[in-house]
C-alpha cells in the first residue's frame, strides 16, 4: 500500500500528493487551534477524554468503513449499537461474560441480514439498512417497553471492566478501540476480505470477471459493520452503565462523518481503517474542543456541519468523480 501511494506521487501534482495526508494535517491543526484558544486542552486528562470519545465513534465506524469502501452505506449502525446495549443488559444477569460475544453475534447476524437483503434482493443499501435500523429500534423498544435498563443492578457488574482502566490508567475503551483498529488494518492488508473490499469498491465488474464471489464479500462487509456497531453498543452501555433503545441515536452522523472526514470516498473504492481513526479523532476534537473553548452547544452543530463540508472538500479528489449523485 505504501508502495502504491509512493508510485502515485510521480504522476500526480502536489495536491494529489498531499491529499491523503490532509486529514492528518487537519487533526494537528485542530489540536493546535483549540490549545491556542484554551491552553489547558493538550493535557493528558483532556486528551484521554477525547480519545475515549473518539474510541467509541471509531468502533462504531470501523465496520462501516468497509461498507462505504464497497460503495454502499449502512444507516443502521446507531440502531444496532442501541439494540446491542439492550441485549447486553438483558443477557448479563443470565449468561455472565458470554453476553459480550453473544451480543456481537446478534449484531453480526443483523448486519448479514441487511447485507443479504441489499445484495440478493437487490435493494439499495440505503433502504435495506434504514429498514434494518427500524426493525432493531423497534425490537429495542419492545424489550422493556421503551425503558432504560440499568447495568448497576445485581449481576451486571461484569461490564464494569470496560469502563475502567487497565494499564497506566489508559481507559480500556481506548485499548479496545486500538485492538479493533489494529485488527481492521491487518485485515485490510493481509486478508482476502480486505483485498476484495478494495477491489470491489474500485471496480465491481472487474472483480466479478476475476471470479471473486462479490455478493458474498458484500454481505460479509455488512455483517462486519453490524458486529462492530454492536461492540460499540456494548462499550457505550458499560460506560453509561445502562442499556437504552436510544443510547446511540445521536451517533449515526458523527460515525459517517468520521469515515468521510478521514478521507474514505463516499463513492467507494478509496479508503482505509487508518483514515477512519484520524476521522474519528477529528470529529471528537471538533465536538469536545468546541465545548472546551466555550462554543454554544446549539452553535456546535453549525460548526460541525461546516467542518464536515470543508474536510470532504479538501480530502477527496472529486475531479476523478464524473457525476456526483
Amino acid at each position, binding site marked *: 500500500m505504501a*508502495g502504491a501511494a509512493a*508510485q502515485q506521487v510521480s504522476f500526480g501534482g502536489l495536491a494529489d500528493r498531499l491529499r491523503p495526508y490532509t486529514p492528518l494535517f487537519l487533526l494537528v491543526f485542530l489540536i493546535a487551534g483549540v490549545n491556542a484558544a484554551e491552553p489547558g486542552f493538550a493535557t493528558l486528562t483532556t486528551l484521554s477524554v477525547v480519545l475515549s470519545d473518539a474510541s467509541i465513534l471509531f468502533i462504531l465506524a470501523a465496520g462501516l468503513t468497509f461498507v462505504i469502501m464497497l460503495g454502499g452505506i449502512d444507516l443502521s449502525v446507531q440502531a444496532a449499537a442501541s439494540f446491542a446495549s439492550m441485549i447486553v443488559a438483558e443477557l448479563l444477569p443470565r449468561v455472565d461474560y458470554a453476553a459480550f460475544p453473544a451480543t456481537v453475534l446478534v449484531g453480526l447476524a443483523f448486519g448479514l441480514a441487511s447485507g443479504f437483503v441489499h445484495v440478493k434482493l437487490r435493494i439499495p443499501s440505503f433502504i435495506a439498512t434504514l429498514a434494518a435500523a427500524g426493525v432493531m429500534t423497534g425490537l429495542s423498544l419492545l424489550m422493556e417497553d421503551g425503558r432504560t435498563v440499568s447495568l448497576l443492578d445485581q449481576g451486571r457488574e461484569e461490564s464494569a471492566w470496560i469502563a475502567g482502566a487497565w494499564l497506566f490508567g489508559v481507559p480500556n475503551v481506548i485499548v479496545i478501540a486500538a485492538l479493533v483498529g489494529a485488527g481492521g488494518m491487518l485485515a485490510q*492488508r493481509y486478508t*482476502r476480505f480486505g*483485498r*476484495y473490499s*478494495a477491489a470491489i469498491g474500485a*471496480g465491481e465488474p*472487474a472483480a466479478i470477471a*476475476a471470479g471473486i464471489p462479490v455478493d458474498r464479500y458484500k454481505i460479509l462487509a455488512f455483517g462486519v459493520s453490524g458486529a462492530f456497531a454492536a461492540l460499540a453498543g456494548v462499550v457505550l452501555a458499560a460506560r453509561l452503565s445502562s442499556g437504552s433503545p436510544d443510547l446511540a441515536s445521536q451517533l449515526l452522523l458523527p460515525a459517517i462523518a468520521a469515515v468521510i472526514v478521514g478521507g474514505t470516498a463516499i463513492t467507494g473504492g478509496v479508503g482505509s481503517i487508518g483514515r477512519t481513526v484520524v476521522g474519528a479523532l477529528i470529529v471528537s476534537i471538533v465536538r469536545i474542543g468546541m465545548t472546551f473553548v466555550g462554543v454554544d452547544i446549539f452553535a456546535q452543530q453549525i460548526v460541525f456541519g461546516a467542518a464536515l463540508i470543508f474536510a470532504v472538500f479538501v480530502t477527496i479528489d472529486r475531479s476523478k468523480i464524473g457525476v456526483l449523485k
Partner: protein
Amino acid sequence: MLELDKISKSFGAVRALRDVSLEVRPHEVVGLIGENGAGKSTLMRILSGSMRPDAGAILIDGRQVVLRDPKRANEYGIAMVFQEQSLLLNMSVAENIFLAQEKPFMRLGAIDRRRMIEAARACLAKVGLDVDPAMKAGELDFAARQMVELAKALALEDRTDAPLTILFDEPTSILEAKDVAMLFERMRALKSRASFIFVSHRLEEVLEISDRVYVMKDGEVVAERLAAGVSAPDLHAMMVGREVKGEYYREARQSPPRADVVLEARGLSVAGAFRDVSFALRRGEVLGVAGVIGSGREELTRTLFGFLPQTSGTLLIDGRETVLKTPTQAVAAGIGYIPRERRIEGLVTDISIAANVTLARLDLAMRHGFIDHKREKSIAEYWINRLRIKTPSAAQLCRNLSGGNQQKVVLARWMAARSHILILDHPTRGLDVGAKEEVYDLIRDLSAAGAAIVLTSDTLEETIGLCHTILVMRDGAVTARFDAPARAKPKQVALLEHMV
C-alpha cells in the same frame, strides 16, 4: 474553414500534443489516424470544447476563436459524435436531438412536443433515418443511434452561421459492415452541408471515406496525404514509424493442437440467444467464433465464463459435465476471461498491478491464510518481466498503464492462475498495432504451452489469422465450421457467406 495553428497540450510532464497544425476545408472529410497515445483523443477533446489547449490558436474562417466549453464549440459549428454514444436511452429521439436546445420549442413556459417532434423528423430526414422521433432512443439499435447522433450534430445548422464541422471518434468500431457502408454513404451525401473529421483505427475505412489524411505520432502530425495517393500499408508505416512485418498474425508459430479435449459443448443453448452449439476444444487449439452482432457469438462467450448459464445442452470441462452459473465457478474450473471492456471488466484500474495479477487466485500469494506481500510482489514482477509490461514497478496503479500494457496485466492474471482454458473476448480492441502484435505473440505462446483458447475478434482477418478452427454463427446457430491451419487459411469471403 477550420484551422488549428500550433496547438500544444501537456498533462504534467507528458506532452500530449506538440505544435499540431491542421485544417479542415469546406465539404471535406479529413481522416485522422495514429496509434493509441498519439494524441488524437486529446485533439478531439480540444476541438469539441471539453479541454483547453496550453498554446496555439483555433481559427474559423480566419478568425481566432476560443472553444471554452462544448456549448461554445457548438456555436462555432463544431459538433462531436461520440465513440461511446452519448444518447440518453430513456428519452425520446426528438428530446435527444434537441437536448439543452429546447428554447425554440418553448411556448408559455412548456415544451411544445409536437413541434419538437416535427423538427426532429426533419433532422432525421437529413441523415435518411426513418424512425419515429417519439420513440425512446434505447429502442434503437447501435447503427440507428449513431444516425440519431449525426442528426443531432446536423441540427446545429439551424443555430449557427459558422461552417459545420462534425467530429467522428471511432464511429465504425461497433458497427457491422453493412452499417459502416450506410454511414459512409450518408457522410458523402452530407458533405454538401458539413465537413468531417474522421478518427479511426481502421485504415482501409479511413482511406475509403477521407479526402485527406493526417497521421499523428507521439503528439505530433507527422504526415498529411491525399487519400487518393496513399495505401493503407503506407499509412500504417507512417503511423508506427516502421513497416508491418509480413508475418502479422505469427502464422509460422501456429502449432497443431494436442489430442486431448478440454472444453466440449454438446447442443449448448441459451434461450433467446443461441442454440445447439457443439464443439470440442483441444489443448493448444485456438477456436475462433465469427458472426455479426446478433449472431449469438457474444452470448456464447459469456456462457463459457459463467455470466449466462446455458438453458439446455451440455458443457464438459476436462470431461466433466458442468453448468457454469457464475464466473467464480468458471475460474475454479480453470477458465480465464479477457473481456473486451478492459477498463471496466478487465482491470480494477485503481489498484496496483500486483493486486490485479493475483486477483483471480489470491491464494497463490497467501501463506498461512494471509496475504504475503513479498510473495505477491515476486509473482507480479515475474509476469511483468515475462510479458514485458512497461511499468516502473509492480505497485504502480493500472490506471497509469497504456492500453496494451493493461491488456498484458489481464493476461498475466490468467497465466498466473494457470488457467488452461482462455476466453478471449475481442482481446485487441482499441489497441494500437504494436500492442496488437504483442498480444498475437502471447496468444501463440499460450497455445504452444497447451492452453485452449476461444477467441472472438473485431475483424475476420484477425480471427482467420490466429485460429486453428473457426465456428461461424448466424441468428443464434452455427452455420459453418472451418479448419484454418497455417498456410491453408480460409478466405474471408468464404466465412462471410455463412455470416450474413
